């Protein structure tokens, strides 16, 4: 299923989780799963002030579309969405949202994990953490481009 997308996949605006969730309701869906990846106030034993995200936007948007389409195909979802913010993300704010809807919860949960896993590890988006001590670091390097590394998230 190649669903039409009526939202910005990569946005500079804070994510509006309520509005995104409102898009997910579907008469055939008995389960809707929403994952929000949020900025926490600590990492590497240090206090975190904020995160900043950068993306290679055209490739990131195209890859997320393909990942959503693949999840739709694997789990026959009624709805799948992924939106990622770029720029500054404050503590407790959402950097990325994945929503999946399906007839039963198992498919919605599995598909949701599959989508966020691939987005985090494959899509050209980068996180920079800014610590309270004034230092900063780019997110942990991870380059799981090998699809075999995603077997645990494949269709059951």
């Amino acid at each position: 299923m190649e669903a039409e997308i009526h939202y910005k996949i990569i946005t500079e605006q804070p994510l509006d989780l309520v509005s995104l969730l409102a898009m997910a309701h579907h008469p055939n869906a008995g389960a809707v799963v929403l994952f929000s990846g949020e900025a926490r106030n600590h990492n590497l034993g240090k206090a975190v002030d904020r995160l900043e995200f950068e993306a290679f936007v055209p490739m990131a948007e195209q890859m997320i579309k393909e990942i959503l389409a693949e999840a739709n195909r694997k789990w026959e979802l009624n709805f799948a969405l992924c939106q990622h913010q770029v720029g500054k993300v404050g503590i407790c704010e959402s950097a990325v949202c994945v929503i999946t809807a399906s007839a039963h919860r198992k498919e919605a949960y599995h598909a949701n994990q599959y989508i966020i896993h691939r987005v985090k590890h494959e899509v050209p988006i980068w996180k920079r953490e800014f610590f309270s001590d004034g230092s900063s670091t780019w997110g942990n390097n991870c380059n799981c481009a090998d699809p075999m590394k995603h077997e645990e998230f494949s269709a059951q």
Partner: protein
Amino acid sequence: MMSTANNIETHLRNTKSGGMTIRVFAILKDYLDEEFIIPRPIDSIAELKKELAMLHPEIQKLLESCRFAVANSFVDHTFQFKENDTIYIVPPSSGG
């Protein structure tokens, strides 16, 4: 670090035609300009990595973990760059 990088970019900008445009992201911007020109044709990823590592040894290991893209598509080590291609160097992802 930045002064060395700036010297390299100045060197690379000396000639703009007939070369390759390089666009980098995220951590690579700590070492290189976001966009710069290599003023001669580069044929392959291996040649590009060798060129950049020679100019900037501290990114040699990082380059080994990067992906490369042309025209919004990732390309592998067998891809032959064309003159005037814009090459995107994509560090390991860390979104989410």
